[in-house]
């Protein structure tokens, strides 16, 4: 009989993230589909009372917590120790957590301490014939596998965006606080804050409905024999501001930007989508002046509706990678798009 532990980090405001609430829903469904399974929520943060209230009615049989100042910020040593303590206390056979930066950093190491196997970036958890099966991607979203393991404990880190977040009513629940043994050595690392890259404004918005990708074509010589960097920058930023979309880029363009050339200064490596960049999740994506080469497009795996504007009718997007390719000058199109958006 499986014993499930769902690990959740509590943020500085005492809240759970959207990815955390998605994991709650996943754990709830998993517990329901495994006969005889029990499940517990394990909270880690400075204070877990509010978070426990937030998910009091999710159906978990037990709410455990490791709290205190030492656990306020995401840090390997303290998070791994908290995860280990919660897993031992709950005697979990299946340890679930959102694959966010906090648990991706700390949980694989904690798994090793527990003698557990670990699989990360899980896209789906299912039960077939009483056995837990997971789906995940290999080779940067090019190959998809359905797989399982017999050994326990088994740690599963689940990617965000695959399931609706749990959205039940808040309530009251008993919270069992585990004694936290804080080691002095943890203070070798101190989290001092959060920093946005040196750009004027935040243009990466993971929750936006639209991803707008700018490719290196924006910097290339245009039919008049000149490049139009200033206008390109204006058109891109104007569109991003008007639509509140998330801005992405190709590798070629961010590399031009970071090699000190006077190109689009608001782009950093964090904007890069693709094989060696990010794989964001948005319902829609619009690519402009981007060729749509495979190493770029693997980063579009989780973009549902895709359109592209490119001068080249034979570019990558035309080869079954976009739903619609407009063969046109992106400068002219985006100028008009921005005008229509007002």
């Amino acid at each position: 009989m499986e014993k499930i532990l769902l690990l959740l980090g509590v943020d500085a405001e005492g809240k759970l993230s959207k990815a955390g609430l998605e994991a709650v829903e996943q754990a709830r469904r998993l517990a329901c589909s495994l006969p005889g399974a029990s499940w517990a929520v394990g909270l880690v943060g400075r204070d877990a009372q509010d978070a426990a209230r937030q998910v009091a009615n999710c159906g978990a049989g037990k709410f455990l917590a490791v709290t205190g100042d030492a656990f306020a910020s995401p840090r390997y040593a303290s998070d791994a120790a908290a995860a280990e303590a919660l897993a031992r206390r709950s005697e979990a056979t299946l340890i679930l957590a959102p694959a966010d930066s906090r648990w991706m950093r700390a949980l694989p190491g904690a798994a090793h301490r527990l003698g557990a196997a670990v699989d990360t970036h899980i896209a789906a958890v299912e039960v077939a014939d009483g056995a837990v099966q997971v789906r995940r991607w290999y080779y940067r979203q090019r190959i998809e596998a359905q797989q399982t393991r017999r050994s326990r404990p088994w740690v599963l880190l689940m990617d965000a965006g695959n399931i609706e977040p749990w959205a039940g009513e808040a309530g009251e629940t008993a919270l069992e606080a585990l004694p936290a043994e804080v080691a002095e050595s943890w203070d070798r690392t101190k989290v001092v804050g959060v920093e946005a890259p040196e750009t004027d404004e935040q243009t990466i918005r993971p929750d936006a409905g639209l991803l707008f990708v700018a490719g290196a074509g924006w910097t290339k010589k245009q039919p008049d024999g000149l490049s139009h960097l200033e206008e390109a920058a204006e058109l891109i930023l104007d569109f991003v501001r008007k639509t509140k979309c998330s801005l992405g880029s190709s590798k070629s363009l961010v590399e031009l930007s970071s090699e000190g050339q006077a190109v689009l200064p608001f782009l950093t490596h964090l904007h890069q989508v693709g094989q060696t960049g990010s794989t964001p999740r948005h319902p829609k994506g619009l690519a402009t002046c981007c060729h749509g080469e495979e190493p770029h497009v693997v980063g579009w795996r989780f973009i549902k509706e895709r359109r592209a504007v490119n001068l080249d009718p034979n570019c990558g997007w035309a080869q079954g990678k976009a739903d619609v390719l407009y063969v046109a000058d992106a400068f002219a199109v985006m100028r008009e798009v921005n005008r229509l958006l007002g």
Partner: protein
Amino acid sequence: MSNGYHIVVCAGIVPDPLQTLEPVTGPQGPALRNEMMLPAVLDPWAAHALYEAAHLARNAPGSKVWLVSLSPKAKLQQVMMTIAQKVPFELVALDGPASGFTDAGETAVALARAIQAIPGLDRSRLLVFGGWESASRGAGATLQMVGEILGITDQFQGVDALEIQSDGSFRILERIEGGVHQVSACAGPPAVLGWATGTLPEPPNQPQIGMQNMRAIMPALQGAQPAGLAGGKIEFLEVRIPSVRRETQVIKDLSPEEIAKEIVEWIKE
């Protein structure tokens, strides 16, 4: 730090991203069709880690860089022909599969064992580097386990910058949600850093460094021990290429005004 760092970079090899990949079922479970024939590259994020390691070593006299790689040695040799020309390092080769379908835990045990066996490695000065995720398994789990086995509990993932402060401590930037960095202060080595892109461009090929490196790389490859992965930890039920091909509608004869109108309507849907 007066006598520098001992930096061990863990880096696998992966198929060149421009290659088409097709899964097949082999005797040891899933594999890639013609895996041994596909041109390979050093795993991209781990390659960034290597360049960052070399840069750090250059600026901290007395430092040394090792590259630990678990991969089929014949393929690793091909990759070394270019990578050896980039920056100075000493290779520690483990002969075994470069496949993404192996277990991260098993791989970590093999890598940690190889690191423990490096002669003269000073654990108090040790920095274990690697990519924060491979382009094959893409788990982002191996380095943490290597660190645990080596007893290192100062660990960072998605690192874009490691800055040495005047007192020898580190300022480290890690990628977190929403396109921002978490900033940490760390007292110094030992530490584990899984790198994202970092800040350095790919170094140009330098044949002289290549020749120097290759003198030690060839014996390291010849003496590569089998990694001893038992396999069988993961049961694969299905491995497939998703149907990604879309019916692309190529629209050539609309004016920019008409296209803009369509796009705006689509965005607002």
